[in-house]
């Protein structure tokens, strides 16, 4: 069996237009998953990892793990930097430390991306249920 490929990245979060549109009264809908349950990767990183646009990947940090869809970043090149739009998916794995100033560390979290074919990306409601259960 071949070993599963893995990609080490620094994770950042932030606003996108799609995320901003989806939060206006459609947070419980599938559109929110498609807008914020995604990770934008450098196309070369994707090739190295062996994933295509729309494949499910697992993003794991010291603070948690989350399943999201891989997306080809329009803002490349940014090898080694992964972007998940702000929202419950990013927040499941970012570094909560406020560095004694009240602000969590939303950008620059070390993460590992692995392919997760056959797995399912949870919607906001299921993600919350999982968090409360765990």
């Amino acid at each position, binding site marked *: 069996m071949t070993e599963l490929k893995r990609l080490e990245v*620094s994770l*950042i*979060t*932030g*606003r*996108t*237009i799609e995320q*901003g*549109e989806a*939060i*206006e*009264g*459609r*947070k*419980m*809908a599938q559109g929110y998953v498609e807008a914020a349950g995604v990770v934008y990767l450098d196309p070369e990183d994707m090739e190295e990892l062996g994933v295509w646009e729309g494949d499910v990947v697992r993003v794991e940090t010291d*603070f*948690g793990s989350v399943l999201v869809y891989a997306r080809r*970043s*329009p*803002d*490349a*090149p*940014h090898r080694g*930097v992964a*972007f998940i739009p*702000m*929202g*419950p998916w990013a*927040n*499941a*794995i*970012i*570094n*909560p430390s*406020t*560095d*004694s*100033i*009240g*602000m*969590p*560390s*939303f*950008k*620059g979290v070390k993460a590992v991306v692995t392919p997760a074919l056959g797995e399912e990306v949870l919607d*906001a*409601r299921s993600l*919350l249920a999982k*968090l*409360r259960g765990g």
Partner: protein
Amino acid sequence: MPERVVSDVVCPFCGCLCDDIEVVVRENRIVEVREACALGTAKFMSLSVGERITKPLLRVDGSVRQVSLEEALKEAAKMLADAERPLLYGWSSTECGAQAVGVALAEVLGGVLDNTSSVCHGPTVLATQDVGCPSCTLGQVKNRADLIIYWGCNPMQAHPRHMSRYTTFPRGFFRERGVKDKKIVVIDVRHTETARLADRFIQVELGKDYELLAAMRAALKEYEIPEKVAGVSRKDILEVVELMKNCQFGALFFGMGLTMSFGKHRNVDNAISLVKDLNAYTKFIIMPMRGHYNVAGANTVFTWETGFPYAVDFSRGYPRYNPGETAANDVLQNEECDAALIVASDPVSHFPAKAVKHLASIPVISIDFHHTPTTEISKVVIPAAVAGVEVEGTAYRMDTVPIRLKKVVEPPEGCLPDREILRMLLEKVCEIKGVETPVVKHA
């Protein structure tokens, strides 16, 4: 069917507060929005198509039932009055009157009062308190600036009309040829949509903004700088510094790339210091790209009422301010608060899992107009009218210019303005506590 066009409407989405929106209304429904960007349009249109809350809800043992406003308020007041250290959070997506009542409520409860700047430009506030902030209004930028720098922000996605209304594309009094009279520089870790519109893009290594700022300050003072700093060549740094020194009026806008990355408030401190240094050569200003449409108002109202812009703790009977101890994420992650009132905000979506876990374990009251993951964990949900669309009020633009929000349509029956709901809640809390209800000015 008769249509009505309401003009000069102010958009209640981001800190740009665009005030040139036209909204077409048919039978009290918004059917078309003109001039607004995709984000603003989504907000206006969401009132009739989104997952709107119109009835007060009470969640008992996992099941939800509709209740009267009176019952919801009674339950909410009891939850808050019973709490030892309630958190009152949100506030940036409502108007200033509601914020003012919120401050009074926090004081009576001895609670922790925080707005969304603690996860946004809180570090900017801290840096400003340390080193000041040379700034101006967006009108001045439009009329005078010939060099625009966007650092760690992506307005094309987060403030889509910022470039077209205030900085890059409009013709100004001294910039008659519009974009031809201006230079745009973008400094970011990704080659964003904004970067693609710029004359010059500088790709900084993630988490190395502080170093790049320091190198620019050193270069400005004619010190020798290394061959490469933060992934940027000496040549590029010197050229950008020359651009800055030789412009007539420069404006540096920055976003979460500085406030959320390693260094946080120290990054902002260094950016402000760079701009101060530049004023020895030319006119230069700096401005944070505020996200929520009235987060600047929340800072302003909290400051005039308590002396502090966010993370205000009333537990000792007087306002105390210590981000790192008294911001929402601190009291949640340290499991210090035992109840929460969330107003026009969705921390369950936007806080780290560790904070959400605690929030989901305590009694929560939400005042909002849409179903969100936060209303999903709330014990009491009170439906509100939408400030800036269904309610008038005041909001502060990112340059802290106050703008009067318009009422465009009537709210659904039973949905009251945030400030009215909060006033009734304040009255009920005071009743339980046996204290006189404070009079809230400006609300």
